[in-house]
């Protein structure tokens, strides 16, 4: 009943003309961003966030979530038509999507992708609606030790699932923690790591780090790779986009598989939609009657990963909205946006800001329908964006980055920092360091430090408070298990391999 009341309130907010407009604008921008290779949802939200400072929080977050969901929809277009994933999560779609296009079924592949995205996206939002209230109620029992343990658990998952090397992911996370320490200590007003600069006393703004690491570094990587885009033939009518009945029938299980796997993986911090789409594709192939055909252009090979990729978004919003813990780079930016507007995501969000919470959830239902309507008939139009030459696109991304960073505090030093973080992001990519842990460390660092210091103040310096309370003890235990599992497994594997010799 509480859910239905909340949803009713949410739809009354989301259906207000201005909020509908922001939803439409977000979905539209997100789809464009998803289509453009190299500009992901995290970078776009980071770039456009400064423009939403003056907006009403409900309208602002509705627009940003529209971008988030829209980018997932649009990401498949380049995978199918160009064999270039628009987002990391669309990599798997290339396998069968591009093959379908080569077999003359580009329109059907785009259509299946849009339908799978709609079904799985809606499933993810329904699951978010049902699961969020009980999780938030449970989290009301949390105090500082539990929050610290929860952040340790979330970051452990991010570190383990987010990259190929556990040590590198942990190091990236620690650099993020350091960056967030720069400035004035909130408890004692002590300046930390400011190097005598008055500019750094107020700390580094999250937006500058995010834009630098995602947008500037992304363009630098594309320039290094020497990317060039070439115009391509795209389906010209709605009829060409509609899959056949046989193709839809073949995708029945894939729609369900993508929905469930995507949502469950989305709830886990750090797993991300790339992993969700890989798992869904793997399951689909393993249960298929014709696994050998995967990779040659089967519709299930498009439906499963695209569904998982979209259901993941609803799942990722569960820990963000109910616990205040983002699971990835994009949700970390959404968290900072909410905080900027004075809305505190967490167990009290539904009580303190019901119009924002339920308005956002309701707008996701509307956005999903908007995206289906936008994506089915307008894909041929959107695909024309691929004709924008990169020598125009890259300066536009640089320009938006400069505007975004400068508008944080109208200070030219922000631009110097932006350039610095762009270089950091590029070097990290070249040295195979994942960037998501750095961003999450930066976003959660302050709250984590506050939680551990408050906990130790509560216990008068006794660290056992963190393991004496059952919830925090369980979460810290899980975190330890998660962090110890990969090296232990590797050691066991080495031992097993050594035995025959």
């Amino acid at each position, binding site marked *: 009943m509480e859910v239905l009341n909340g949803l009713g309130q949410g739809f009354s907010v989301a259906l207000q003309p201005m909020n509908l407009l922001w939803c439409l604008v977000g979905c539209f921008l997100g789809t464009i961003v998803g289509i453009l290779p190299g500009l992901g949802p995290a970078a776009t939200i980071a770039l456009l966030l*400064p*423009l939403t400072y003056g907006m009403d929080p409900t309208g602002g977050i509705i627009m940003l979530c529209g971008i988030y969901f829209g980018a997932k929809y649009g990401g498949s277009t380049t995978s199918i038509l160009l064999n270039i994933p628009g987002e990391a999560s669309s990599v798997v779609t290339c396998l069968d999507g591009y093959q379908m296009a080569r077999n003359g079924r580009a329109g059907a592949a785009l259509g299946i992708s849009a339908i799978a995205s709609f079904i799985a996206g809606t499933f993810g939002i329904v699951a978010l609606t049902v699961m969020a209230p009980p999780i938030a109620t449970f989290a009301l029992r949390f105090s500082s030790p539990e929050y610290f343990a929860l952040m340790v658990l979330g970051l452990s998952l991010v570190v383990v699932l987010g990259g190929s090397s556990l*040590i*590198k992911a*942990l*190091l990236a996370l*620690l*650099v993020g*923690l*350091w960056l967030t*320490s720069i400035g004035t*200590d909130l*408890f*004692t007003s*002590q300046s*930390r*790591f400011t190097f005598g600069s008055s500019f750094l006393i107020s700390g580094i703004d999250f937006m500058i780090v995010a834009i630098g690491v995602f947008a*500037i570094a992304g*363009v*630098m*990587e594309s*320039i*290094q*790779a*020497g990317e060039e885009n070439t115009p391509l033939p795209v389906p010209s009518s709605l009829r060409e986009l509609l899959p056949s009945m046989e193709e839809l029938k073949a995708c029945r299980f894939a729609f369900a598989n993508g929905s469930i796997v995507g949502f469950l993986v989305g709830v886990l911090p750090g797993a991300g939609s790339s992993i969700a789409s890989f798992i869904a594709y793997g399951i689909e192939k393993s249960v298929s009657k014709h696994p050998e055909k995967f990779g040659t252009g089967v519709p299930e090979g498009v439906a499963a990963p695209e569904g998982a990729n979209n259901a993941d978004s609803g799942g990722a919003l569960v820990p963000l909205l109910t616990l205040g813990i983002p699971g990835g780079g994009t949700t970390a930016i959404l968290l900072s946006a909410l905080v900027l507007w004075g809305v505190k995501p967490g167990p009290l969000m539904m009580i303190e800001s019901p119009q924002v919470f339920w308005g956002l959830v309701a707008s996701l239902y509307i956005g999903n329908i908007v995206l289906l309507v936008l994506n089915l008939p307008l894909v041929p139009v959107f695909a024309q964006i691929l004709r924008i*030459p*990169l*020598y*125009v696109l*890259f*300066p*536009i991304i*640089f*320009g938006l980055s*400069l*505007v975004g960073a*400068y*508008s944080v505090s*109208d200070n*030219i030093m922000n*631009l*110097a920092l*932006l*350039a*610095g973080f*762009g*270089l950091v992001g*590029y070097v990290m990519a*070249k*040295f*195979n*360091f994942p960037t998501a842990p750095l961003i999450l460390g930066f976003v959660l660092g302050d709250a*984590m*430090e506050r939680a*551990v*210091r408050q906990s*130790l*103040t509560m216990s*008068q*310096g006794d660290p056992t408070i963190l393991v004496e309370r059952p919830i925090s003890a369980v979460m810290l235990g899980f975190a330890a298990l998660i962090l110890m599992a990969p090296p232990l497994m590797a050691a066991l594997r080495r031992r097993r391999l050594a035995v025959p010799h």
Partner: protein
Amino acid sequence: MASRRFDKDVLAGLALAALGSFIALRATSWDLMGEDGPGPGFFPLGYGVLMLALSLVLTLRALLRPSIHAVETGDLAGHMRALLTWAVFAASALAMQMTGFVLGFALLTMFIVAYVFRRGWRSMVLVGFGCSAGFWLVFTQLLGVELPAGPWGF
């Protein structure tokens, strides 16, 4: 053995070990634990020491493993192109205090068009000033966003 100095993980490990040492040393100069609980040095000391330990593990592991993950030098031209673009981006961003956004951004765009994409001077001028004028029109004029202004006011 000489090439190990250029192993990606060794270089990264040493740089991060230096950063971890700096953080830990700096943190010890602040209160670690006071009567009211942990001080400003407590948390940085923790992650500084952890960073130092992990970066040393990364370095040692790289030195001990048989295969070497050397810094990619195969695409030296690509790296140079990216780094030079970054240098021009940084220089034009800082110069905007004197040149203003419009001129600084136009010069940056012209560099990208001419150097990275090897387009002719017409495209260079057209895209450079077109993008710059577009940004000025949308952000400064329509949205009222403050951008660095040169001596001529934009």
